[in-house]
């Protein structure tokens, strides 16, 4: 019964990419790409490889690396902020973390869009839209 519920409820981007929203797609994509500030050569190479299909210039990749390092740091702060305060106390509404992440993603997108060479953000967006095929969302029954 539980198994059939999750199969029906799961959103599979390879079947229905349009059901994966842009805000979720960018959130996951940024999380998958982000490397620390001052990355090692290997980390920088890895980030660059993940952007290969967007055909970006070295300067554009450098800026994205910097923006995503910032994204990662702020995302870590949000995770910390939304930890339970201790004991068996429940945290506040679930949407708060989601809202904060949406705002962070939106700001990161805007910062990248403003700095990239003409046409580069459109190529990046095409890559993110393409990657929706590799994303899945699973709504859960209430877990109390």
């Amino acid at each position, binding site marked *: 019964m*539980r198994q059939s*519920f*999750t*199969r029906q*409820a*799961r959103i599979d981007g390879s079947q229905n990419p349009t059901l994966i929203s842009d805000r*979720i797609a960018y*959130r*996951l*994509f940024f*999380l*998958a790409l982000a490397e620390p500030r001052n990355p090692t050569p290997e980390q920088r*190479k*890895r980030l*660059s*490889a*993940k952007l*290969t*299909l967007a055909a970006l210039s070295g300067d554009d990749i450098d800026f994205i690396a910097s923006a995503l390092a910032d994204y990662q740091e702020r*995302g870590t702060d*949000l*995770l910390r902020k*939304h*930890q*339970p305060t201790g*004991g*068996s*106390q*429940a*945290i506040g*509404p*679930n949407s708060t*973390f*989601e809202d904060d992440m949406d705002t962070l993603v939106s700001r990161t997108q805007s910062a990248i869009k403003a700095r990239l060479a003409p046409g580069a953000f459109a190529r990046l967006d095409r890559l993110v839209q393409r*990657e929706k095929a*590799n*994303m*899945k*969302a*699973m*709504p*859960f*029954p*209430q*877990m*109390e």
Partner: protein
Amino acid sequence: MPIRSFALRQVHFAALVSTLLFGLMQAASAQTAYTYFGNSADGSTLYAYTITQGSMSGTSSYTHGYYATIGITGPNGTYGTNDGTSYLSINAGTPAVLRRDTQISSLAPGSYRILRHGWAFCTFVGSFPFYDTGEQQPTVMVPPIIHGVGDNTTGSNTIYVGTFRLSGHLRLGADRSRAHSYPDH
């Protein structure tokens, strides 16, 4: 007639129950976990990676967890340098991000099979796989890389186009699908 009426009542009852159940499921599905798997190559290295992000609500009386497995198997029985499973266990109601990267460098031409799997669980309601058991795992084909060209008979690297001799070299196109000759200057 009474039979038809009974059947209609059954249909109405079933519709009512379905509507109620659907409403309950909708209300209970206000939280979502996401997963993303990707792979990319830069010519010398193949990368595979996975991200899972969840923010399920609830009380910390129960534990939530996420598993993410990623691996690469190369054509010569080679494996990724960081293949394996990452696991994160947290109190219910805590947002979480789980990421794992693996890679194979010095790529040999051939077929690379990528293994990815992931699931979430709750000590209260059980586990939920992101992928079906029979779901096909992706495969990445790495084409051979041409490092040089030589004449089979003489072993010379001189390039001939028809009867014209070119002193030059071959350069692969950006998509690696074509090679072009360029004269040396």
